[in-house]
């Protein structure tokens, strides 16, 4: 069997990759994708722990995470579209209205 630790370390690495992506990328849709990456990492951790604990509660939780992630992605894209209407760009650096 694969030790639990392996799964968790993988999940952590994925999470950090996602965070770096959110911070570094300028295209807001790519940022959204990185967010999905982070959520996925959480899912992986949950399922791995569920197997280690011997019950299915972790998997149910991961299921709900997927639901929420989907809703979030939908709404997020809608916001990006609305933003695009006025600014004509999806770059986050063009959303600096709150500067100072």
């Amino acid at each position, binding site marked *: 069997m694969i030790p639990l630790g392996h799964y968790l370390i993988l999940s952590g690495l994925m999470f950090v*990759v996602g965070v770096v992506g959110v911070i570094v990328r300028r295209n807001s849709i790519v940022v959204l994708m990185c967010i999905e990456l982070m959520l996925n990492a959480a899912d*992986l951790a949950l399922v791995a722990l569920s*197997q280690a604990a*011997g019950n299915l509660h972790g998997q149910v939780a991961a299921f709900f995470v997927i639901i929420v992630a989907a809703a979030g992605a939908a709404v997020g894209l809608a916001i990006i579209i609305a933003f695009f209407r006025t600014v004509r760009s999806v770059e986050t650096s063009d959303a600096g209205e709150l500067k100072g």
Partner: protein
Amino acid sequence: MTALFWLLAFIVLSSGVAVVSLRSPLNSALALALNLLAVAGLFAMLQAHFLALAQVIVYAGAIVVLVLIALLLLSSKIEQHKRREDYLAVAAIVLGSLFLVVLFPLLQGALPQISANNVQVTAGTVAEIGRLLFTDYVFLFQLAGLLILTALCGAVMLARSRPGQGG
């Protein structure tokens, strides 16, 4: 088994890095799809059959498609590399490593509540997950449905065209 795990892990990590680092957003989206599929494989290895299915259908299927459509509609410009933003990347990577270092003991899996790894477990079949969903988590299940409804309405409202505006 372990070989499969390492293969899938490699795919997950490299596609993840690809999502973050590829310049073209379309390529990033495709990398994301690969990533999600690999994770689905990992779920399957963990006896989470239903979840692996849901992952493929919802995540890799619906969400990635949505993202691709949005990319095609809005902009798929190749992001220019700006030298003076390198510090951000450095800071983020440093912080990320710090994060991992700090959480390392936790990530080793040495959790007192969890007994030995070789526990015989009921597989996460559709029937089993369904049973849990409709008994212990029925309330949350209904709420989740409400959430999706709200998200649907919200997305439509936010994205519809206003009079006088294009799009």
